[in-house]
């Protein structure tokens, strides 16, 4: 008896508490609905759908489970090995040769005292960031054209033989590096410039009094001031190591050069949507997804610990 007597009021308050919560919050849940529906359809249904990586896809359903068979196929595939190697090489090249450029640009831009000139330079070099890789590839193909491209006309001018870079398997990775610099170096310098602007002006004044010149100020004030930003962006880049740039490779590759720049994402597209090996392609995509997640999460944790700034 006493038990029931004690339970009823509790239940009643819990119910009324819930009612009060609903009355208070329903407008906000309504606001959340479109977004949540979107995330479920475009992000969570695909995660569920990814189970075909563990199945044998049959024209007449049902599919049956094959465990890790597709992953074993990938592990023993020489093509996938090459694809993985290409991805790692291209990412490493981009970190080594693309990553430093915006830092240098930001340091140089910061030295330009005429604000009109600086703004002009900025507004030009930010532009390529807003162009699609279809457009940029069109531009790159035109610039590198062996007959009438700017680069080969310059080569001819200094007495060099024209070179067909776009169909040159030894040159194509460098085409990726330089086109990436062309597209993103300007815009990425903005992040460093923002960090430079945040540096305390008093540090420069103190350095001035100590008789520091331009390069000493850069070395002892500016660079140390942006090291946290550099570290954060570097770690973030490392976290994205397995994404070597799908849109870029997809638009710049051709049958001749593909063996040198076929990356995981283009491989997934090719064997999945072009050849129709859905399960194997999904397995490759899932491999990238899982390893990529581990890398991004590690990047986040490391960045948090080193610089106090995470990935988000």
């Amino acid at each position, binding site marked *: 008896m006493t038990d029931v007597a004690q339970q009823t009021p509790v239940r009643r308050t819990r119910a009324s508490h819930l009612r009060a919560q609903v009355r208070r919050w329903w407008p906000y849940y309504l606001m959340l609905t479109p977004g949540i529906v*979107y995330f479920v359809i475009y992000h969570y249904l695909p995660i569920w759908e990814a189970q075909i990586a563990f199945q044998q896809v049959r024209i007449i359903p049902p599919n049956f489970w094959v465990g890790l068979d597709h992953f074993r196929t990938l592990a023993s595939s020489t093509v996938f090995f090459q694809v993985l190697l290409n991805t790692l090489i291209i990412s490493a090249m981009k970190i080594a040769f693309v990553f430093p450029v915006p830092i240098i640009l930001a340091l140089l831009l910061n030295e330009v005292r005429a604000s009109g000139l600086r703004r002009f330079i900025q507004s030009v070099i930010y532009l390529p960031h807003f162009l699609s890789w279809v457009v940029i590839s069109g531009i790159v193909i035109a610039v590198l054209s062996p007959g009438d491209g700017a680069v080969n006309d310059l080569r001819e001018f200094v007495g060099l033989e024209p070179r067909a870079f776009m169909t040159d398997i030894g040159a194509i990775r460098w085409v990726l590096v330089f086109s990436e610099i062309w597209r993103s170096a300007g815009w990425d310098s903005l992040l460093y410039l923002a960090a430079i602007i945040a540096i305390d002006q008093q540090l420069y004044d103190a350095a001035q009094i100590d008789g520091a010149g331009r390069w000493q100020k850069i070395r002892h004030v500016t660079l140390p001031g942006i090291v946290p930003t550099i570290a954060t962006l570097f770690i973030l880049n490392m976290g994205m190591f397995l994404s070597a740039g799908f849109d870029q490779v997809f638009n710049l590759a051709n049958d001749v050069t593909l063996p040198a720049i076929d990356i995981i994402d283009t491989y997934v597209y090719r064997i999945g949507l072009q050849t129709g090996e859905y399960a194997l392609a999904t397995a490759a995509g899932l491999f990238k997804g899982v390893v990529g997640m581990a890398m991004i999460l590690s990047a986040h944790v490391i960045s948090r610990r080193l610089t106090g700034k995470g990935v988000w």
Partner: protein
Amino acid sequence: MATRAQQRTPLERAEYALIVSSLLLMVVLTLQPMLHLVAVSLSDPARVAGMNGLAVLPDGLSIEVWQLLVTHPNVQRGLWNSIVITGTGTLINVAATALMAWALAQKALPGRRAIFLGVLLTIVFEPGIIPDYFVMKRLGLIDSTWSVILYKAVNAWYLIILIRFFEEIPRELLEAAELDGANPFQTFFRVVLPLAKPALATITLFYMVFHWNEFFRAMIYLSDQTKWPLQVVLRQFVIEGDKLAMVGVQAMNDYTAASQINIRALKAGMIILTVLPILAIYPLILRFFTKGTMMGAVKG
């Protein structure tokens, strides 16, 4: 200023000249390829074949290429499709993102943390394009423009930027509205949105550029070529070098004017045409994006 310039040594002045000229070299490297394409597209078609790759001025003057482009059915359709996808898509993006961000900016909202984690998971884990494709297929959205319009309807990064922005809004302003008897919707539309104008303008521009430049999802989700946006039309012509698709079998067989136009000039014009809308909003981008990126710090 004058006295400082006098104090500079010749070495310092040489250094400064070196810095400025290396930046100007970057400017030239950025602009020359685009100016060259403009020049080629406006040149006399007969002279395009002999044009130097370094040229930035047209050789002769002709709008033949542009006439052909703007009257071409594939280009017109592509342009229209791109406008529809970008317009509708951006509207949905901004509405869904702003509503969701405002709800998630309520610190006391039950379930807020779980939903936020659910959003973060989509940033770190992507199962790849094949599952995406199959979900679209299962929902019957293949060959529907909606599959492309709704792709990235809420960008997790912009959502986070907006949540941060909304959280900064002073509580007193909101409480004042509530005291005046405003319900949460009224508060959102009359107090929050007007305050968030710069942030909303920034993400609107982000989303517009994203939709205008998106080509891959349209390529794989839309097999019906009449639904292709401009980027996919451009790709077919410039990257895949499909001259037939551009000029048309009829024109090729009949040796009409269209088939005589230099293919290099036509490609150049097509690339520039696709860039024009970006150039049109670029001044706005410069005004808002630069601020927005500083605001979101690393979250470019």
